């Protein structure tokens, strides 16, 4: 299975994950600072900033785009409960 590395820069920890893993599945276990609310892409609590590897996450859905807009997301912000990891990336809490 293809692998990818995700680095949580707020705690300086990197995890080697199977491609397709959602960020949420990794971040809580590793103790990153991203906070979760509904866990289903609705509340916007888990907004994260993608420092590198923006294109190595799955495309945001129409619903995620809407939630990001509502939460005044800046460029390269994503919802950690929605984004799946396809390749190496570096993220931190927004």
């Amino acid at each position: 299975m293809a692998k990818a590395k995700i680095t949580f820069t707020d705690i300086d920890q990197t995890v080697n994950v199977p491609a397709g893993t959602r960020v949420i599945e990794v971040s809580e276990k590793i103790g990153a600072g991203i906070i979760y609310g509904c866990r289903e892409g609705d509340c916007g609590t888990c907004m994260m900033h993608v420092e590198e590897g923006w294109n190595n996450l799955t495309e945001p859905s129409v619903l995620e785009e809407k939630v990001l807009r509502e939460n005044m997301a800046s460029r390269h912000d994503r919802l950690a409960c929605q984004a799946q990891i396809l390749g190496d990336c570096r993220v931190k809490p927004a």
Partner: protein
Amino acid sequence: MSNPPSASPTDIARRGEAIEILPGVHWIGALDPALRAFDIILRTANGTTYNAYLVRGSHGVAVIDTVKAEFADEFFARLESVADYDEIEVIVLNHLEPDHTGALPELMRRAPQARLHISSRAPAMLKALLKPREEDPLEYRTADTGDEVSLGERTLRFLHTPFLHWPDTQCTYLVEDGVLFSGDVFGCHHCDSRMFNDRCADFRFAFDYYYAHIMRPFKTHVMDALKLIEPLALKIIAPTHGPILRDRPRRYLTRYRELSSASFAERIGNEDPTLVVFYMSSYGNTARMAEAVCAGAEEAGARVSLYDLEGGEIQPFVDLIETADALAFGSPTINGDAVKPIWDLLSSLAVVDLKGKLGAAFGSYGWTGEAVRMIEDRMRGLKMRVPVAGLRIKLIPTDEELEECREFGRALASAIVSGEKGRVIDFADLG
């Protein structure tokens, strides 16, 4: 429209009028002295207050936060004692929880010209709260740190302070007068109609209790917020619950910093990974396992603490857990379950940030032995990692089995060390 100087705040509060904090700055909140349980989880021995404020500038009036819906009449009566609705230009919502926004829909109806100001993380929550129809969308402005609203000679400046204690929270600073409208930060559930901290009863325990239950899970965000607040020239802190802090307000910043400061290990300058082992034992078998687990973990470089839950209260143990890197729970199995003190402790951790902590379970059992797996499931539910599979030993541990316990402790301590910064961890090892 200021209050007569001879009237005490208590008299004014009882009369249902606004209380002057400074000329042109009034408390227009509500008293709820009968409340004994707030949000189910918080107890209060003498009720609470829902604090809302009114600031008058030369170019209009701002209302900062409102009150719980059932206290709206009290809020509007106080507001009307110092301003007319058509003067209100600005409504600031520092926090959208219903105890501060219950009177908002009616306030918006009475002052339709007023513009809402909320934090940049609040729009979705505001829409969920007010449920606007599609043909009548909400109008509001979002604020980030440093954004300002002018009321003429007075200026409101916003501080983005998310997760204190919801994503939407912010503080609002009245620049010229040094007043921080802090939202729930620096608040407490204490109802005292004398309203100012230099006149109220001793509420220190209520202040600490409120912090422990509301702000403690968000310590990192408290520290971030303090970095924004501490440089301000502060004369008064005006929170949304409890007394207005006008006498030496910086004391309360210092207290927050103390309560939010780093772990015990960092305080004593010891960076060794820390493991706390809790156990219960009916015949001494799980206790012997616990001692062997500790011995193994120490060999592998962890600083270990061992506690018999039979001999302590829950709260100090919660404090220990908060500052530990890893936890291990030892329990016998009785009637197919772990024993109650273990569950009492594991159900008391809602106020502690457990993200990234390691957990492990072990125990001796007579004939079924479900406790270990059940404890592991609970720890995973609390977002802890369980890197080493639980260890169950039937009845009395042999020397070989005690060696297994030591190896279990060594493996757990190694997992803490391998979690050190900068190293790449495999997803499968996260447990």
